């Protein structure tokens, strides 16, 4: 019970900080809308229909936009040494990790919803016949992405290369999320039945679980001084 309260306090702290600065959500939101605009100019509609490749574009936008925000997870606290104080508090490191992941997950879910709205507007996209299955695919995919991203964001923030290193470390590990997330989204947007994406949802859940468990276990070796 204490554990949940600690995680809750950390999530609350991160969300309040984000609410006051609005730094990361604003950056990610602006980024995703602008990427939507760029994509609509980059795609030649006489060659390929944007609707056909929308699911891939959506996932790439979420991942690139997400990297922007995830890379700065520890930035604010790192700058004025506040993270040292968080580390000094008697909170287990895995609770700290889970708190960060949940806060990031909430932020990225907001951004992902924005991506879907923007792409629906720009590319005249419906959400298919199974919005619940689509939500499950997107939320599980984002959770796995955020869990991996948060762990390695803590790592890259402590290197001399900083955020440049983050995509190099994270992208290779994200391939299952991209494959299963994008194919499932594509099937659902085309209106295929949920049974088609059953396996994808299970794989995305497995990825999220592995990422969360390994991140929670290994986080203390990353933040240790």
């Amino acid at each position, binding site marked *: 019970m204490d554990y949940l309260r600690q995680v809750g306090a950390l999530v609350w702290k991160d969300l309040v900080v984000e609410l006051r600065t609005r730094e990361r959500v604003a950056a990610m939101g602006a980024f995703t809308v602008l990427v939507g605009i760029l994509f609509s100019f980059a795609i030649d509609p006489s060659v390929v229909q944007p609707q056909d490749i929308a699911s891939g574009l959506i996932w790439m936008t979420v991942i690139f936009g997400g990297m922007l925000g995830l890379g700065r997870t520890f930035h604010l606290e790192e700058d004025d040494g506040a993270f040292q104080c968080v580390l000094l508090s008697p909170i287990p490191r895995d609770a700290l990790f889970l708190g960060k992941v949940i806060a990031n997950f909430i932020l990225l879910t907001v951004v992902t919803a924005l991506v879907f709205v923007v792409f629906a507007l720009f590319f005249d996209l419906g959400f298919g016949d199974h919005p619940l299955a689509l939500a499950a695919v997107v939320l599980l995919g984002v959770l796995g992405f955020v869990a*991996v991203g948060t*762990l*390695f964001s803590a*790592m890259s923030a*402590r*290197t*001399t*290369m900083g955020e440049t*290193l983050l995509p*190099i*470390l994270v*992208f*290779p*590990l994200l*391939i*299952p999320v991209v*494959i*299963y997330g994008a194919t499932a989204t594509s099937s659902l947007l085309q209106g295929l039945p949920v049974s088609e994406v059953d*396996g994808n949802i299970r*794989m995305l859940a*497995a*990825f999220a679980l*592995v*990422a969360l468990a*390994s*991140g929670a276990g*290994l986080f203390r*070796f*990353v933040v*240790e001084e």
Partner: protein
Amino acid sequence: MSNRLRSLGVVLGFLGVLLVLVLHWQVFYWVATERSMGVVQRIFYIHVPAAWVAFMAFGIVALCGAGYLWLKDDRLDQAALSAAEGGMLFTTIVLLTGPLWGKVAWGVWWEWELRLTLTLLLWFIYLGYFLVRKSTENPQKGKRFAAVLGIVGALDIPLIHISVKWFRSLHPEPVVMNPDGPTAPPDMLITLFTGVAAFTCLFFCFFLLRYGLERMRHALVLREAGRPGGPVANGVAS
């Protein structure tokens, strides 16, 4: 101890080179040509052993990394680093020989098939492994980061391996580790196992020599740190 390891490494190196020569004789003169793929199939005897060694090396990286995080023993980190360097070499061999075969057999250099993707991904994980080690001010931190990356990478690989079965695959079915027993004829299997033995010997030769070098470097840093006025070994002394 370190001398004995080095001698063992040299012996394995000679054995590996000898086996590579035998392998080439087998590949070019001895083994039968495969019926449907023709001569190009012979690259298989280089490609598959290299892939086995590449993945085995990654297993060593992950296990030694986990051991390092647990025991904080620098020797485990040095072993992980040595295995990673050998592993990257053999992953590169897999990625070079695969397209050569694919161009003839599939008609394209590259195919986004999951086993290929997995190997390419492995290569980039190795790349990240070396980058993250080099980019910390405190070397201890770099070693821990690298170990974490190795473990997460190793956990990710089974997920992708399962996905190989999920997706329709262009890649030839496994001919040795097949659930119904090996499907290849004996001369092909013998050639394949010569390749596996040769590359395994070479890998452990590189591994031991590299490990010995890393031990010597470590000893040197410790000696310099102990000398008055010498540079301070930044957290290297364990």
